[in-house]
């Protein structure tokens, strides 16, 4: 069909696509780290500030029975930050590059990809901070990290890219989607066991919590960093869930992409 993905790949060499993505990601990273040497600090600040707030609210005031609560929070907040930043900015990502999309036809898939990879790099850079915290809480890094981190990374990548494709394409047609997406992310945050443990959730609500694709991924990251554990069953369920969401986003994006230049 029109703008077929195969023909899209064949029209240029893989080397070219690799360069294109790397240049776009490098652009964002350079801009971020050029303006201030504190660029790295900024990407840490937000989740750490949230962690402090939640720690105060839920540990100091509400006294949740979770051990090592500050470490617990960071293990969930850093990956959440990647997911939320990428998905949250996705509605505007195509609109913001309108002048390019109207002229160059192979860029459409690449622009959301570069945007989420940029956030992914920030996330990867925060992993040493997680390890450092683990060290403070006497958690020794586990050899499981070596394959656990790439595995959960890939699962989260598909989920994030799928939702980004979905929201970035639909937002071109319904320009107020951005507001709905931020509301959606807010709701999803509370439905994701980032600042609570699933064991604290009453049984009858488990259905809703586990239906949320981010749930498995956050649990996966946390088990990995806190216990060096990797639940293969959990991984495959949420990996295929994420892959499914990716394909839904991908096909809707592909269906809509011939119309992008018409509405920009």
């Amino acid at each position, binding site marked *: 069909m029109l703008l077929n993905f195969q023909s899209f790949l064949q029209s240029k060499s893989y080397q070219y696509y690799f360069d294109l993505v790397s240049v776009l990601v490098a652009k964002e990273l350079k*801009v971020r780290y050029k303006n201030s040497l504190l660029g790295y600090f900024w990407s840490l600040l937000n989740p750490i500030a949230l962690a402090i707030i939640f720690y105060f609210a839920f540990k100091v005031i509400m006294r949740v029975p979770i051990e090592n609560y500050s470490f617990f929070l960071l293990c969930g907040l850093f990956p959440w930050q990647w997911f939320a930043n990428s998905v949250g900015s996705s509605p505007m990502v195509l609109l913001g590059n309108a002048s390019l999309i109207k002229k160059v036809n192979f860029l459409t898939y690449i622009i959301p990809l570069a945007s989420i990879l940029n956030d992914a790099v920030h996330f990867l850079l925060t992993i040493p901070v997680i390890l450092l915290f683990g060290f403070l809480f006497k958690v020794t890094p586990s050899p499981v990290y070596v394959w656990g981190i790439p595995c959960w990374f890939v699962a989260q990548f598909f989920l994030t890219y799928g939702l980004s494709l979905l929201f970035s394409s639909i937002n071109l047609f319904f320009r107020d989607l951005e507001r709905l997406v931020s509301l959606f992310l807010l709701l999803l945050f509370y439905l994701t066991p980032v600042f609570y443990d699933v064991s604290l959730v009453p049984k009858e609500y488990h259905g809703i919590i586990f239906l949320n694709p981010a749930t498995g991924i956050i649990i996966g990251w946390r088990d990995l960093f806190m216990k060096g554990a990797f639940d293969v069953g959990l991984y495959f369920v949420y990996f295929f869930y994420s892959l499914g969401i990716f394909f839904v986003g991908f096909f809707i994006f592909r269906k809509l992409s011939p119309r992008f230049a018409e509405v920009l």
Partner: protein
Amino acid sequence: MQESVVIFERVTKSYPTYTYITAGFKNFLIHLPKSLKGFKKRYTVLREISFQITKGECVGFIGRNGVGKSTLLGLIAGVLKPDSGKIVVKGRVSPLLELGAGFHPDLTGRENIILNGVLLGMTKAEVKAKLDFIVDFSGLKDFIDQPIRTYSSGMVARLAFSVIAHLDPEILLIDEILAVGDVDFQKKSFQKILEFKEKGITIVLVSHSLDSIVKVCDRAIWLENGGIKMDGEAKEVVSAYLRS
């Protein structure tokens, strides 16, 4: 007989009237009956247009505003899809972006050259190999490691055109680029386009500047009411257009 590199066969292109949709979900739902009608209603810009452009030809499209000139370039670039008809394009298409599109103000001139070169279809290695020539051509050597937010708009235009000048396109699409920049810069870019033409690169130009069409193009196509009103030697078409 030279090979045709751009072939349009009875191409029709219409635009949707998405007014209520692009205004967002809220407006879409408030005006639901009208919105649903809007899905079907389309506005036809080009109606069963057929033409061919042979390799190395330089063709200018003229016509009033909204007649579909930029749409035509979009169709050649493959960004827009026709409703019906067949479009064949053979060869690497390089669209000239609006000057400065794809630049980032916080990056240096050098970094922007690489970014822009890759966006326009070169690999990183190709841009890097040409980097010194591009910097030389731009005449911005002293500023090349400064962020381009410190550049004047004329300097940005020079940098952008220097990247374009070192592209290696087979089909070049130009949408009103000749009107940008100061007189010197216009001359220089004009010169470069003539150079492209001499190299045998196929050029499709859309412009309101009839002057530049006559100077650059061998052939002009006059669009009116969604169809081709006249197709012929640039000078003749332009003078007929002026008389109308």
